[in-house]
């Protein structure tokens, strides 16, 4: 069985009067059991050249309502360049230059067509790294 782990560390020495140090590791497993996820897109990279919305992952290509996970990183360095993340027609948030994201994804096609979409902040070149772990 494949083993995929994701570890996050949140730290700050000056946000609070007590040091913030939070670390969590999870093993990516299938929905409702302990079998490791067996599919991945691998690490990909996309550079956009327009401010149009792009579908990064189409919900119809994956099974609904499983334990899929998506990783994204905005590799830009200019602070104002961001990608707006949307699922279905709902805006989740902006990942600015240097930011990364890790989140579950429903890939739901029953109630909403929950395509995973990105919209660059402008037509300037924006580069994104991405990886999907799926059932």
């Amino acid at each position, binding site marked *: 069985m494949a*083993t995929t782990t994701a570890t996050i560390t949140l730290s700050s020495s000056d946000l609070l009067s007590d040091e913030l140090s939070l670390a969590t590791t999870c093993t990516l497993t299938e929905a409702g059991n302990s079998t490791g996820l067996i599919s991945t897109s691998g690490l990909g990279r996309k550079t956009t050249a327009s401010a149009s919305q792009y579908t990064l992952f189409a919900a119809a290509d994956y099974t609904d309502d499983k*334990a899929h996970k998506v990783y994204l990183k905005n590799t830009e360095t200019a*602070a104002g360049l*961001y990608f707006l*993340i949307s699922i279905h027609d709902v805006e989740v948030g902006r990942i600015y230059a240097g930011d990364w994201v890790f989140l579950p994804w429903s890939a739901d096609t029953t109630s909403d067509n929950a395509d995973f979409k990105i919209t660059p902040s402008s037509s300037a070149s924006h580069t994104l790294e991405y990886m999907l772990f799926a059932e």
Partner: protein
Amino acid sequence: MATTTAAVTLTSDLLSDNISVTTDTTCMKGGTTADGLDQMDMGYIEIATGDQYDLFDADNALNKNKANKVYISNDSTDETYYVTITIDATVVGRLYAGDWMFIPWGAEDATADIEIEAINGTNKVSYAYFHEGRTLIAS
């Protein structure tokens, strides 16, 4: 300026070449490298089944379309337990026992709350919200 760092490491033996991705970011206010997010809320709750609850309320102009970050961890241990994460009536995904997520949250309008519902049993959830400000409700 407060400096808060979020780091992630992804490792896997799924492919013939091992996956090993490591990166980090400093949590900054939207569109700047000069000013870090300097306010936060952090907590732990146990959520019973049967209803969907607002974990974070979007009805706050200070949140709107910023670079605010949300961390949620499902600390439950029963592998069949999960919470659904919903924004503006669209299910983003399921966070199973042991899983965590870290996302930006745009709180684009008053209905874009982050909502959570426990499935299959009472789920234990930790959360942290790094932001540019939150409007306190007058007493």
